[in-house]
Every structure is written in structure tokens, then in C-alpha cells.
């Protein structure tokens, strides 16, 4: 999409032009550079960027070179907001060198992660000179890069705060306090969803959800009154129920989303047809 086309759409934000690898692109002022690149299909490797959380810049993989006030500097594109006339180079020699080293480090830090292996290979890195960290007791299967997304999703998005960083330096891991089943865990699975390396393991067994990576925390699942299947963690359902209007509460409390849809549709049809079939 060209700058003009975007302008004609009449968005409220001020439009700016940025140059990425010599080509000009339109963007909203203060848009995150990485998301501009993603939209324009310009490849920048990244692991810890999550649109629903504030930019944090933990993994350092999304480094690019920008020219600002005539000076070149390396920045993380997920924490850089675009300004008019910004010049960006995503694959200069310095960036490439930096990235390769990082990939080597990540291959050693999370040697079992297929995501990282595939990503590194795309950038030509298939081996690491660093000692691979293999711990057979690691609850995250030697896939965690300690980006903190799961911790932040649990805290900032869900307000549960069930998991956190434990220990320091090379001993750092993510887990529950005292490595015991968490009382704060809602079983929502946000951690599973945001983890860029698919490290977090969870499994539903009948009427229970087991957060395997988080000290095998077990949360009970709620059963649908209509179809009988177990569909969501009870604690999560309770948190959500507390936020909805009373008139909707009953349907939501009793049924799974699918049955709920059917139930509401049925009600409306009945109302419209006056109860006649």
C-alpha cells in the first residue's frame, strides 16, 4: 500500500515515510518499526514481540541499523517507533554479525527448540560454538529463552501472577513459587499461547487441566450443562463472569461457547416467531 492510499483512508494518526533497505514505505507516526516491517513483509527475526504487551526488547534478535540525525545506530526494532524520514537497514553486515552470534547463543540456551533451530537455519546458522544447556529435569524441555513473555502475560494480562523468574544468572528459570502447584494459576493458558518457542506444556485430562511446566499445577475444568463437555477452567470462568452483565450471566455460567451460541439463537428465534415453530 502506498503512502497516498493510506492517507486517503483518512486515519487519525499522522502519516510518515520511512526508508527500509532503500525502499520507501508509509506508516503511522509512532508505529512500532517491527510491525511496519511485518506488514510490509520485510523479514526481521524476532521472538519476544507480543502486540498485546508493551514492547520490552528482551530477545535482541530484531536488531536493525537506523540512521538518526546523521548517525548510525543499532536498535531493537520492536522498541523503536517510527518518525518521518527514518532510514533503516535490516541486513547490513553489522546486523548480520550480531544476529548470527545471537542465534548461536540461543541454540545453546534452548537446544531443544525447533522454532529456534528453524529460524536460525533461515539465517544460515546451524551450529553453535557455545556449550549446549541440557537439563533433563527442565520443566520447559530446554526450550525456554527466558524472554519473560509468559510471566508478563500471567501478570499484566491475566492479573494472576502465578509464575515468575526464579534464581539468578545461569540458574534462572521460570516456574511457580517453591516449585509447587500454584494457587494463583487460573489455567487460562495465556503462557502457552505467548511463548515464542512453544516451551510451556499444558494438557487437559477429562475434568482437569494440568499445567505441566508449572510444577504440574492442576485446575478443575467447568462442564457444559448442555453438551456435557469440559470447556474452560472453572477459575477462569469465574473471573470472566465477574465482569459480564447479570442478564447474560446465566447462559454463560452454564454452557460452553458453542452451546451458548445455539441457545441464544434459539431464544431469539422464539422471540421473533412468538414461540411458534
Amino acid at each position, binding site marked *: 500500500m502506498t503512502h497516498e492510499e493510506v492517507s486517503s483512508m483518512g486515519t487519525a494518526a499522522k502519516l510518515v515515510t520511512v526508508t527500509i533497505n532503500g525502499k520507501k514505505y508509509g506508516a503511522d507516526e509512532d508505529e512500532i518499526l517491527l510491525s511496519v516491517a511485518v506488514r510490509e513483509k520485510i523479514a526481521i527475526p524476532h521472538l519476544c514481540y507480543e502486540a498485546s504487551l508493551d514492547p520490552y526488547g528482551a530477545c535482541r534478535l530484531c536488531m536493525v541499523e537506523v540512521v538518526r540525525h546523521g548517525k548510525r545506530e543499532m536498535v531493537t526494532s520492536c522498541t523503536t517507533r517510527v518518525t518521518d524520514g527514518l532510514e533503516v537497514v535490516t541486513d547490513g553486515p553489522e546486523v548480520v554479525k550480531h544476529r548470527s552470534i545471537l542465534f548461536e547463543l540461543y541454540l545453546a540456551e534452548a537446544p531443544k527448540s525447533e522454532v529456534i533451530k528453524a529460524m536460525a537455519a533461515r539465517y544460515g546458522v546451524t551450529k553453535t560454538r557455545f556449550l549446549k544447556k541440557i537439563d533433563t529435569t527442565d520443566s520447559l524441555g530446554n526450550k525456554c529463552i527466558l524472554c519473560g513473555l509468559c510471566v508478563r502475560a500471567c501478570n499484566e494480562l491475566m492479573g494472576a*501472577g502465578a509464575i515468575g523468574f526464579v*534464581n*539468578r544468572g545461569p*540458574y534462572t528459570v521460570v516456574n*511457580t513459587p517453591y516449585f509447587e502447584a*500454584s494457587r494463583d494459576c487460573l489455567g487460562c493458558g495465556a503462557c502457552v499461547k505467548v511463548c515464542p518457542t512453544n516451551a510451556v506444556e499444558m494438557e487437559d485430562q477429562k475434568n482437569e487441566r494440568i499445567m505441566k511446566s508449572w510444577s504440574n499445577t492442576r485446575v478443575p475444568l467447568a462442564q457444559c450443562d448442555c453438551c456435557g463437555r469440559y470447556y474452560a477452567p472453572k477459575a477462569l470462568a469465574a473471573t470472566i463472569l465477574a465482569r459480564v452483565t447479570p442478564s447474560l450471566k446465566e447462559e454463560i455460567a452454564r454452557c460452553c461457547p458453542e452451546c451458548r451460541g445455539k441457545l441464544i439463537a434459539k431464544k431469539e428465534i422464539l422471540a421473533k416467531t412468538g414461540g411458534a415453530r
Partner: protein
Amino acid sequence: MDEKTLDIIISRYEAPAGRLLGIMGEIQNQEGYIPRETLEILSVKLEVPLSQLYGLATFYSFFSLKPVGDHVITVCMGTACHVKGAVKILKALEEMLGIKSEASEDGKFSITTEDKKFTLEIARCFGACSMAPVLRVDGNLYGYATPENLPGILAEYGWERHEN
């Protein structure tokens, strides 16, 4: 730690900055470690997730989650002390106290004797490198330590050689 004492400590920390560390520091000083129940009550009182408090407690070497002995011996393993033979000091202390160091899960080094009289810990640089190798017993600093002068130092704290 009883709740009243904890409340008094909490009341001393109004400002959010440094609050958690301040309160946890006082608990550590009074109890010699951070008891689990105290951390759990603190989490409820301050409305801070237990995971965050536990993170702090395991991050800083100053905090201990296990009860420590009557006297805490901290051996400096900083660069200067290391070069000046801190490893020998540590080995000698282990031998004197009859304990064996092993790599712990959390990377913290802290072992307590069976009779709970002494706890042996390590730290990085006390800032007293000119007297390396250095050790500290309950807040008292001892420089120019040698395996030979250790028995004299520990004797001040009630250490006796057990013949076995």
C-alpha cells in the same frame, strides 16, 4: 515471624520504591532467613503475587530461604580473594565444620552444620580486596585469612575441633 511484628515492619515502608526489598531485608535480619509462611502472609498483605516475592528471595544472595545456623560464615570468592587462595580457605572451613559443599539447584551456596551452629556461605567481593583473602563471620570482617589462622577465628564463636 508473628503477624504483629510483620505489620510493624510493613508500616515502616510507605513509599513504593524499594519497599519489597526493605521489608524482606528486615525479615531476613530478624529471622536469619525468610520463612515461607511469612512470605505468603506478606504477599496477601501487600497484594503482591507470591511469585514476585519468591523471585526476589531467590535472586539476591542476601536472602536465604532456609534457616541458617547461629553464626554465619561468609567466604569471599571475588577475583582478588580467589587469586589469594579463597578456595583453600573454603576447603579448610568445610573440613573444620565437617560439611561438604555441593552444587545446589539454585546456584546459591549455603550449608548449615547438623548442630545448627554454623552456616557456610560464599559471596563475591566485600570491597576489602587489599586484605584478601577475606571472610566474614556474623558481620565481622577478617582479612589475610590462612587455613592456619581459621581455628583461632572460629574459636571466638564457640567452635571446637571434634576428634573423630
